[in-house]
Every structure is written in C-alpha cells, then in structure tokens.
C-alpha cells in the first residue's frame, strides 16, 4: 500500500492506542491499530463485542484522543468533533425530537454554518428525497418507525457531504427485514455519489454486504487481525459469499474459547 503520497488516501490511522476510564478501571480499548481508508471506500470495522471498534470510530469522530499514535484526515490531525466527519449512531434518539425531519437535516447544515436559508432548505429536501422520506418531511421523529429514523440520520449525515461518513452500527437496533432493506438502500446511495464511509458492525454478513474492505479486530484490547477485500457490491454469487463469510468466521473465532474468560467484558458495545 502506498501511503501518504497516494491521492486516494483519505483517513490514516497509525498505531492508535485508545483508553477510557470506567468508574473502577482504566480500559485499553484498542492497541496500536493501523489502517488506511481511501476515497470512495466502504471500509468496515468488524469484530466481536469489546474489540474497541466503536471506540475507534469515536476517536475518528474526534470525541476521544488517542494516548498513542495519531489519526489524520486528509493530512490533518483530528482534534475535535467536526462536520467534516458526520456520524450516524445506532440509537434512535440521535434525531432532535423538537425538530421535524426536514428541520433535523437543515439544523446540521445551518448549525455548522455550512449553508443557510434557501440553499440549506434545498439541500435538505434533496437528501430527504434520496432516502425516500419526502412525504414525511414535516413529521416529528417520534411519529416515525426505527428504520425511518435511521434514514433521516443518514440523510442528515449525507446532506453535510462530509469527507467521510462514520456509521456506528446504524442498523443494529433494527429488525432483520428492515436491516436487509436498509443495507440495500445504503449501497444504492453509494452507487449514486461514491461517498467514503467508515462502518462499524459485529455482523459478518452485514460487513460482507456493505464493505469493499473489511478490517477484522480481535477483542480485549482491539488489535488488527486481518484486512480483507470483500465482494463487489450486489454480487449474487452465494458460494463466494459463503466462502468469505466462513473465512472471516474462522479468523474471528478460532481463539474465541481462550478469550472468553480471560478478561471481563468491556463497556464497548
């Protein structure tokens, strides 16, 4: 991999060790993790509970500072949260309940000072249309289903047209049917604009469906186990898919038995 000079390189995570404090412990979430995300990547962080994948995403979001190593976006070190790294969370309460669907999308645009007035209005309407919620533009979030709320959050993230979209198990709280549908929709949106996305999940099938590149992390603390290429999007070859999923499964779970009772479960996801 040619790092640094490659024009495609967007996010550079180097030797990142992350720690957070609980009431009683100082927990090391990840230990010296390296990975590079290039433009238009659908980069998936995959691993079991406690591998620090959500913590890693929060560090890229700027909510957490690495104790070792550094994270650079487009060459600039990340110091604080910012609208160039819009985040889509798992929780349904990420929408502001006092704002309608359209106001929620517009809020991000205006609060960050990116757009205002008519331009913000039009951009919001455009992205709400993209996620198919135009008829619900004036509804308040509490009247929407879980899947619709996540669509709004995705529209809000995409409307900012960030350098990279960070998704923290965005479909984790959805039922299986809605989840499948949302995965397909996300891929369709990607086909439109080829945005860069960093996606966290603990589901192997989801990682294979969503990602073009998958980073496998081992738990307690999170370390890079492998970085794999996934299948092309919409690849209907079930055999190839099965082979890849089995391979990931083996890599993730060969040492599962030893791991299970060595350390207590972390706070992370």
């Amino acid at each position, binding site marked *: 991999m040619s790092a640094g000079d490659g024009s495609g390189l967007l996010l550079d995570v180097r030797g990142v060790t992350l720690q957070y404090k609980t009431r009683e412990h100082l927990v090391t979430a990840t230990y010296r993790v390296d990975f590079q995300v290039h433009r238009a990547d659908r980069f998936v962080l995959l691993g079991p509970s406690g591998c620090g994948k959500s913590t890693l995403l929060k560090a890229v979001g700027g909510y957490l500072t690495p104790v070792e190593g550094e994270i650079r976006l487009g060459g600039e070190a990340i110091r604080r949260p*910012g609208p160039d*790294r819009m*985040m889509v*969370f798992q929780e349904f309460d990420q929408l*502001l309940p006092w704002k309608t669907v359209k106001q929620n999308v517009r809020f991000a645009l205006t609060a*960050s000072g990116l757009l205002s007035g008519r331009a913000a209005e039009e951009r919001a309407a455009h992205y709400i249309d993209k996620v198919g919620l135009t008829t619900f533009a004036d509804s308040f979030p*509490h009247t929407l289903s879980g899947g619709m709320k996540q669509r709004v959050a995705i529209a809000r993230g995409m409307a900012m047209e960030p350098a990279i979209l960070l998704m923290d198990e965005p479909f984790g709280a959805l039922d299986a049917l809605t989840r499948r549908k949302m995965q397909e929709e996300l891929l369709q949106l990607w086909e439109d604009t080829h945005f860069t996305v960093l996606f966290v999940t603990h589901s192997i099938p989801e990682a294979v469906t969503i990602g073009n590149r998958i980073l496998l992390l081992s738990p307690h603390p999170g370390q890079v186990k492998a970085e794999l290429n996934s299948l092309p999007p919409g690849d209907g070859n079930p055999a190839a898919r099965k082979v890849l999923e089995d391979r990931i499964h083996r890599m993730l779970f060969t040492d599962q038995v030893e791991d299970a009772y060595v350390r207590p479960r972390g706070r992370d996801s």
Partner: protein
Amino acid sequence: MTRPVQPILRPERTGALVAQDAFGVVAQPLTLWERAWNNGALRKTLLLILLALLWEGYARWVNNPLLVPTFSATLQAFWEGISSGVLPGRTAYSVRVLLMGYSAGIALAALLTACAVSTRIGTDLLETLSSMFNPLPAIALLPLALLWFGLGNPSLMFVMVHSVLWPVALNTHSGFRAVSNTLRMVGQNCGLSGAGYIFRILIPAAFPSILTGLKIGWAFAWRTLIAAELVFGVSSGQGGLGWFIYENKNQLEVPSVFAGLFCVILIGLAVENLVFRNIELRTVRRWGMQT
C-alpha cells in the same frame, strides 16, 4: 415405553388475499358520545359541576352560613366582590407582586444553573445550597425577611424568590444532566459549542424538566405569596388577595372569605390549564417527549 411427540407433517398452503373493498369496517368514526367523553376539558368540567353540587348540598344540610356558606352564597359574594372592583384590584396587586417574584426567582435559577453546568464547583454549590434551602418553607423565612426588609414588597419578593429558585434550579439542572449522550455528540458533531450548544441542544432537550420546574415554581410562589399576605397583610394602604381573605375573616364575612379562596383557586386553574397546558401542547407533547 413413551416416544417424544413429533410434529405431524402437513401439506403447505398459500393464501389468496381479499381485495381492499371487500372488508366490512376498516376505520369508522366514533359516536358523538365517545368523542365527547374523550375530551378532557369536558370531563373535568363535569367533575367541577359535581363538586359544586356536593358543596351546595352539604352546606344546606349543615345550615350554618358562618362556618360553611353555600356555593351559591359564595358565588354571590364573589360576584359582588368583582362588581365592586375590590376583588379585581386585590387580584391585580397580588398577580403583579407574584410575577415580579417569579421572574426574579427564574433569573436567579438560570444564573445558578448556568454555573452548575459550566463548572464542577458550580454543581457542588447548587447541590449543597438546594439540599439546605429546598426543605425550608418560605414562610419560615418571613419573620427574618420582615426584620431585614420591613413590611412591604421587598419582604414578599424575598420569600417568593426563595420558593421559586430551588425547584426551578433543581429541575433544570437534573434536566440538563439527563440529556442523552447521543444528542450531546450530535450537537458537537454539528460544530456547536458554548452558548449555541446550550440554547440549541441542552435547553430544548431538557425542556420537559424545565417546564416541570416552572410549574412547581409557579405553584410555590402563589402559595407563598397568599400565605405571606395573610401574615402581615397590608402595606401602604393596598393589599392583595391574602389580605382580602384575612380582612373578611375579621369581619366575619365568611362568604367573602370563601370568595377570596375561590379566586385563588380560579387563578391557579387558569394558569395551569391555559398557560402551562398550551405551552405543553405546543412543545413537549408535540415533540413526543411527554405523553
């Protein structure tokens, strides 16, 4: 020997769906009576009429106008109080003092909560002060207030600020603390910080608690004011509703005492049902933050 029960193998089947218009009733409007009963205002009005009837009946049965005047006598005294202009004047006086004390209390509460959200020592200050002073009835401070500020509005303001400040500050602060971590992160993600973050994320997200604080503060202020007026009554020739009640008790005008109490109740009901209820409907209910 018993064998475990096995499921019976049955043939598969597919269903043919009936067309939309073949259903009998899909949605049918409720009857007039059902809709009327769903109206909260109507139910409460019926309840009030029932209570008034009970009062009237009991007072007639006791037949002692000095102890329990009838509802109709109270209404009459109320009407006379209004038409003579005494009651509206007293009410206006009380409400004016009340609004002054209420707004001063809210302003102080805002200041204290701002300190509490921005610094840890501010939080400690709010927690310590409120656990000390919140259980202290405002009226217990009245003798002291009279010593410090004398008879008159400053004393009233002092006890009212005391009764408004703590519930409003406590509720607002606990509302801020209950704002979900996700919403905070969303705010930061949009690049908000400082005052923008407080006004555009924290305050709306904590609004249900803030509103509860404002309601409790209002009720406490109203009670404290009436009680304080009952204790030291009149200043500079003009008194409020509490003084009206006290005065009429001394003259054994018991229906007018009841009329004064009636007025206190009416204002309480009006503020709760017109002001706070409308704020609630337009904000927290509309946003689905409260059902």
